[in-house]
């Protein structure tokens, strides 16, 4: 059991700021992240080859990581939180080459900076190899999947699409089009609102400039991913603007519909929610006095919001007031709200899946089999939708959008863990995993 004053879960922009701020002000800080390295999603490290070439935010990322390093906060990567209790413990699993290391962390104060994940919406053919999330494809590229020379369509909704498309272009992909379901009017209003955030506006303009060869199809959405002659790999997508439908050949499709907050730990702990987001006060404190939350889980509002909120939470743990910073949070929240409006999902997307389109990818439950139930629990019990290892992280937002049901109670384990992990509440232990047949020693 490792004890610390401040435990930060998530080493993305919010977690990095929180940990650095708390550590700089005298707290003993440990940061846990599921990924190998700090950075979260938006600042994900490339683990192979040269780092991605310079782009806006790069300077901030390196300054933030350097600050974290100097602050004295301890960063532990590869730690997946599967259990947490508000009384002050968190359990993690860490996969090593010889097995699974189960660790216990005891905290006085907890900062949840768990970020967000992409929302995927189903369409016929979305399970074909070659179809990825938008951020998903970018993450895989950073993990060593080369896209040079590959023809890519980036589709869905949200500011992430342009960022992903621009990075893929820098990685020598041929980004033939960006397909954005938001209408021209919505996008124009969003762009207008960016006058209050000149840095964001400039970033957007820069991305667009990097994609000068790419068609930007506004008010359009993908209705089908089509396999090539071998039946197994993507060869084209069908796109519509609501009237016409046309086909665009591609090797890869990067498709994501904005973001959903990772609020599972907060829900497990019993934090109060405001809709789908964790409720926090001006100091980023949740309804539980020793638990703070910063960044996307409190509202999808982007990088700057995450950094400021993380800073506030870290300083609050150190007992330092932050009224000046709190003003910036309000401005960033407003940006988040205008994002929500701009990239609201159009109702036509509900008509895209066909009855035989898979909704739950873990259990291959099709759209057609989801009708006639009373709610999420009913559909889960009867169809197994949401019963797979992703525990509803992918299909939950789909069902919510298509059928209007919100996912219900969160239970531990938050991620799959070896059975033996439940036997160690007080110590850390390595559970050896072998592929030998098990023989009890007599």
């Amino acid at each position, binding site marked *: 059991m490792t004890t610390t004053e401040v435990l930060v879960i998530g080493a993305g922009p919010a977690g990095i700021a929180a940990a650095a701020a708390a550590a700089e002000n005298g707290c003993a800080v440990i940061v846990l992240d599921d990924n190998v390295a700090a950075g979260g999603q938006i600042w994900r490290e490339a683990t192979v080859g040269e780092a991605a070439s310079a782009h806006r935010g790069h300077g901030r990322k390196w300054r933030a990581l350097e600050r974290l390093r100097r602050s004295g906060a301890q960063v532990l990567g590869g730690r997946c939180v599967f259990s947490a209790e508000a009384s002050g413990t968190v359990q993690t699993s860490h996969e090593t080459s010889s097995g699974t290391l189960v660790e216990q962390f005891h905290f006085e104060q907890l900062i949840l900076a768990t970020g967000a994940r992409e929302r*995927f919406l189903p369409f016929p053919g979305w399970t074909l190899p070659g179809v*990825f*999330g938008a951020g*998903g494809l970018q993450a895989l590229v950073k993990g*060593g999947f080369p896209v040079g020379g590959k023809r890519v369509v980036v589709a869905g909704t949200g500011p992430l699409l342009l960022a992903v498309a621009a990075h893929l272009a820098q990685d020598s992909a041929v980004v033939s089009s960006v397909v954005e379901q938001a209408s021209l009017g919505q996008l124009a209003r969003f762009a207008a609102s960016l006058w209050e955030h000149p840095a964001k506006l400039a970033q957007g303009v820069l991305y667009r400039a990097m994609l000068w060869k790419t068609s930007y199809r506004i008010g359009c959405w993908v209705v089908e991913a089509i396999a090539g002659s071998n039946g197994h790999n993507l060869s084209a997508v069908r796109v519509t603007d609501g009237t016409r439908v046309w086909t665009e050949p591609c090797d890869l499709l990067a498709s994501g519909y904005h973001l959903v907050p990772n609020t599972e730990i907060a829900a497990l702990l019993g934090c109060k929610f405001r809709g789908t987001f964790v409720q926090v006060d001006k100091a980023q404190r949740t309804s539980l006095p020793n638990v703070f939350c910063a960044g996307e889980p409190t509202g999808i509002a982007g990088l700057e919001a995450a950094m400021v909120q993380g800073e506030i939470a870290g300083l609050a743990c150190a007992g330092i007031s932050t009224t000046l910073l709190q003003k910036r949070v309000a401005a960033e929240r407003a940006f988040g709200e205008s994002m929500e409006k701009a990239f609201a999902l159009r109702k036509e997307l509900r008509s895209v899946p066909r009855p035989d389109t898979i909704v739950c990818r873990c259990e291959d439950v099709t759209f057609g089999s989801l009708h006639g139930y009373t709610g999420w629990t009913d559909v889960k019990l009867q169809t197994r939708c949401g019963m797979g290892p992703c525990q509803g992280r992918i299909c939950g937002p789909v069902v919510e959008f298509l059928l209007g049901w919100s996912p219900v109670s969160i239970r531990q384990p938050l991620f799959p863990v070896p059975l033996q992990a439940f036997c160690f509440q007080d110590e850390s232990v390595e559970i050896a995993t072998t592929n030998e047949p098990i023989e009890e020693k007599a």
Partner: protein
Amino acid sequence: MFELLSVKINGATSRVARGTTVAAAMLLADRPSRISVTGEPRGALCGMGVCFECRAVVNGIPHRRTCQILCEQDMTIEASR
């Protein structure tokens, strides 16, 4: 800085740069990570460890999220069913 490793994917040898995730290696080899419940080939989707589509058998241990694992020399990787 371009050190190459060899790993075995479904029995066939692949050479990848150090730092490549197992999921990326499987994509490079054009092999699915797993076969779904109804027999569809699947590979990584989210790239960040939440979708579980990239699950494969790594060094004999099933249900490993390959987007979170870096390739190591002589690693054996098989698509899971």
